[in-house]
C-alpha cells in the first residue's frame, strides 16, 4: 500500500481508540481483583473509592466494577472483531465471485442474499440463541452471518465495475483462471471499500451484541460484556448509579470513536473517487 496522509481528526480518533483497546486488554492486570471475584472485605454496592482499589466502585454482589467493565469490554470488542471478520470473509468471497463470474451463479447468490435479507434478523438471532443456548461462538456466527449480506452486495457492485477494467482483460491474457484473477486482481482492489465497510460494521456489531446481552440473550454469567453490565447497572441505577455509568460511558465512547473513524475513511475513499484511483 502506498502512504496516505491522515487528517488530525483521524489520528486523534485512532489514538483514542488504541487507548481504549489497550486499557481493556491490560487494565485488569493492574487491579488486585479478578473479573468475577467477590471482595468480602469491602462493602457491597460501594461507591468509587481509592481505599480498596475499587476505582469504579463495586456492584451489589461486591465485585469490582473497574475489572468487570474492562473484562466486559474484552468480550464486546472480541465479539465485534470476530463477527466483523466473519461477515467480511463471507461477504467478500460471495460478492467477488458473484460479481466476477456473473451469469447464473450471480443470480443464484444474489437471490440467496435477498431471501436472507427478508428474514427478520433480530428474531433470527434470538431464535438461534434460544435453540442452541447462549454460546459465545454461536453469537459470533449469528451476528457475522447476518452482517455479511450488505458486504456481499457492496462488494459485488464494486467487482462489476472492476471487471471492465483493462488489467482484468490483461490478466485473462496472462492465462490466469477466474479464481486466480479474483484473488490476485479483484480482492486487492476492494481493499479500500472493505476497510470502510469493516469500520462501519464494527460498531454496529458491538451494538447488536450489547443489545442482545441487555436483553439477557447475550453472554452467559459469570462472563460479562458491556451490554450485560448495562443491564445489571440499569436495575440498580437508583442505588449505585456508577454501575450503569461506567460501562455505558465505555460503550458510548467506543462506538463514537469507531463511527468517527468509519466516517473519515468513507470521506477519504469517496474523495479519491474510488478505491483504486
Amino acid at each position: 500500500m502506498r502512504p496516505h496522509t491522515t487528517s488530525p481528526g483521524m489520528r486523534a480518533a485512532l489514538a483514542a481508540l488504541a487507548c481504549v483497546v489497550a486499557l481493556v486488554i491490560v487494565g485488569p492486570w493492574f487491579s488486585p481483583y479478578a473479573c468475577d471475584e467477590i471482595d468480602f472485605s469491602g462493602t457491597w454496592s460501594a461507591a468509587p473509592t481509592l481505599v480498596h482499589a475499587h476505582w469504579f466502585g463495586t456492584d451489589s454482589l461486591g465485585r469490582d466494577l473497574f475489572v468487570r467493565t474492562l473484562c466486559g469490554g474484552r468480550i464486546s470488542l472480541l465479539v465485534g472483531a470476530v463477527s466483523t471478520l466473519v461477515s467480511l470473509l463471507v461477504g467478500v468471497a460471495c460478492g467477488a465471485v458473484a460479481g466476477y463470474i456473473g451469469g447464473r451463479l450471480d443470480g443464484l447468490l444474489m437471490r440467496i442474499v435477498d431471501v436472507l435479507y427478508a428474514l427478520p434478523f433480530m428474531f433470527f438471532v434470538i431464535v438461534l440463541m434460544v435453540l442452541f443456548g447462549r454460546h459465545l461462538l454461536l453469537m459470533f456466527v449469528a451476528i457475522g452471518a447476518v452482517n455479511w449480506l450488505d458486504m456481499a452486495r457492496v462488494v459485488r457492485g464494486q467487482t462489476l465495475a472492476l471487471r471492465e477494467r483493462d488489467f482484468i482483460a490483461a490478466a485473462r491474457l496472462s492465462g490466469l483462471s477466474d479464481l486466480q484473477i479474483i484473488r490476485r486482481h479483484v480482492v486487492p482492489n476492494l481493499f479500500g471499500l472493505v476497510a470502510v465497510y469493516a469500520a462501519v460494521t464494527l460498531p454496529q456489531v458491538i451494538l447488536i451484541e450489547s443489545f442482545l446481552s441487555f436483553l439477557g440473550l447475550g453472554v452467559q454469567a459469570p462472563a460479562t460484556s458491556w451490554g450485560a453490565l448495562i443491564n445489571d447497572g440499569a436495575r440498580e441505577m437508583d442505588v449505585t448509579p456508577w454501575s450503569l455509568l461506567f460501562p455505558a460511558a465505555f460503550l458510548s465512547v467506543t462506538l463514537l470513536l469507531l463511527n468517527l473513524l468509519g466516517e473519515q475513511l468513507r470521506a477519504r475513499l469517496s474523495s479519491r473517487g474510488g478505491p483504486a484511483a
Partner: protein
Amino acid sequence: MSLLSVDRLCIGPVDSAAAPIVDGLSFTLSRGDSLAIVGESGSGKTQAVLSLLGLQGAGLRVSGSARFDGIELIGARDSMLDVVRGTRIGMVFQDPASSLNPYLTVGMQIGESLEVHRGLSRAESHRVALRLLDAVRVADAARRLLQYPHELSGGMRQRVMLAAALACRPELLIADEPTTALDATVQRQLITLLRELQRDFALSLLLITHDLGVVGELCTRTLVMYAGRVMEEGDSERLLRAPTHPYTQALLRARPRLDTDPDAPMFAIAGSLTRAEISPLACCFAPRCEHAVDLCYRLRPPPESVADGVRHCHRRPEDIATAPG
C-alpha cells in the same frame, strides 16, 4: 503466408436488433507485416480486436471467422484461446490508466504471464522482466520493477504494458491506440520504440489508431473503418498519397497539418457518426459523403478489389479524385 486472417467478422448486441458494432470486417495480415486500423471514435476498432482474443464486451455476440496461424479464434473455448492469447498474441490495451493493477508492482505484472504460461518462478520471471524493461528502453529498470503503477508517467506505463505484452515473445502484437494519451515528444519516442521492437522481436503488428501520421511511419498496410464497416484497405504509402475512398479523403483533409497556411480554416467532416440512422442496405457513410449519389442510399457497396487492396464505394476512384464542383 498469412498469420492472421479475419473473414466477415461481425459483432453485435446479443439481445437487440440494433446496428452491429462491427459489420463484415475482413483482412489478412502476413507474418512480419504490419497493419493499421484507422477510424474515428466509436467505429468499433477496439471491440474488433478484443473479440479476436475472446475478450469482447459483456453482452456482445461475435460471428464470422478469424484464423491465427490456422487456429480458429472466434467461438473458441478459453482453454483453446489460452494456447495463443498472451503467448503467441500479445496485446497493449487502449487505456493506460486502467491497464495496470494499482496494487501490484510493475515486476509482478510483467512477470505474470511468464509465471502462468511458462511456469517460471517469481525470481526467474523478475529476471526476464528486468530484461524486458531494458528492451522497452526503461532507464533504471531494477528500481522500476519494484514500483507501483501510480509512480509511473503515462509514457512509462505504455512501455511497461509493452513489456508485459512481449513477455512470452508473441508473434503478433496488437496495440490499441498506444500513443493517443501521450504528448507529442513521448509519442515520437514510442513510435520509434515500436519500430525497433518490431524488428528486434520479429513482430507482426496490428495497430489501432486514429492518427494518420503514425500509420505512415509504422505500418505497411492500412485499413480504414467507419461505423464498423471497412471503407478501404491498401498499401499505407499509396493510401495516404492517393486515397480512393471519400471517407479516407475526408480523414486526410481533416488532419491538422503544419505545412499549410495556419490561418486557413480547418476542414471537418460534416455531421457525426450516428449508428441509429445507418441502414443495412445503404453505404453507412452516405449521410456525410460529399460524393453520395442515389445508389449509395439504396445499396451497400460490395467489396471491390484494387491493385493493392480493396475498397467499398459505388463511385469510381477517378470520379471522386476532385471535390464535387
